[in-house]
């Protein structure tokens, strides 16, 4: 049969590696990473956390400012549960979409609850005698990330 432009798909031919060998390779990688975590041979950990409807990339001793009110007093310790990604220098743990609560622990303390600088909102329509001025000061909360810990319970 003659070869036309539609005989073969437009993407190059793909061959996946052998599933048995792949499973062995995956198990080896998991064992190594578990060993590294239990031995504690990672340096600084960073995490991607979903908090206040935003995603933040955080490490230890980080300051975070949110543009809303948190129902916690100043000095309260908070545990952030929606962790999407945790990584160190040699390995990363990617959650699909979240990582388990028994795997990562991110702790933070509420430091400050203030208002933002007074932002000026002006709407003006020329030649129509229309001018509105509004000054907005959003409440803000400042958190400090104390620790990020991982526990060796991969499978």
């Amino acid at each position, binding site marked *: 049969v003659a070869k036309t432009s539609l005989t073969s*798909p437009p993407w190059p031919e793909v061959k*996946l590696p052998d599933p048995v060998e792949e499973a062995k390779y995956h198990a080896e990688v998991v064992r190594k990473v578990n060993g590294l975590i239990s031995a504690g041979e990672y340096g600084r950990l960073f995490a991607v956390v979903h908090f206040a409807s935003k995603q933040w990339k955080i490490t230890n001793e980080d300051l975070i400012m949110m543009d809303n009110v948190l129902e916690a007093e100043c000095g309260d310790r908070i545990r952030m549960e929606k962790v999407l*990604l945790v990584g160190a220098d040699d390995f990363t743990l*990617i959650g699909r979409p979240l990582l388990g609560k028994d795997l990562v622990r991110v702790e933070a303390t509420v430091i400050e609850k203030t208002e933002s600088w007074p*932002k000026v*909102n002006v709407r*003006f329509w020329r030649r129509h005698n229309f001018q509105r001025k509004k000054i907005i000061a959003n409440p803000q909360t400042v958190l400090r990330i104390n620790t990020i810990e991982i526990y060796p319970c991969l499978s």
Partner: protein
Amino acid sequence: MVVLSAARWLRSRLSDRFWRVQDVLKYARHFRGRKNRCYRLAVRSVRRAFVRSTKARKEKKRFLRALWITRIEAASLEHGLKYPAFISNLLKSQVELNRKVLADLAIYEPKTFKSLAALAQRRRQEGFLAALGDGKEPEGIFSRIVHQHY
């Protein structure tokens, strides 16, 4: 005798005109030319500046998203993937990182970004095989959907 209105020579005149003028001029002090000194010119410039800043607050979000997309595109091209392929395959593998965090990872965590690109590439290949075969062949490993219960 009862006096209902004040006498004609008693007028009510502004006493704090200086401060009202300064309220406007304080926002114009860093402008260029006479509009940082003269009230009549400053009023117009300050009003335009405020209106532009309110509109810019909405456009900043669009601008930043376009910037993140450009950066992610550049980083994924370094690893041999185009931006639409990268993002769509990441989402299909249930990794829900947004563009802001992906751009930060591409800048500060190159190894993590490389592993994400490899994940997207592998998911893409499994997608090609699934599209071609479409039979009772085994699904790829990375295409499996994870069901999580909290």
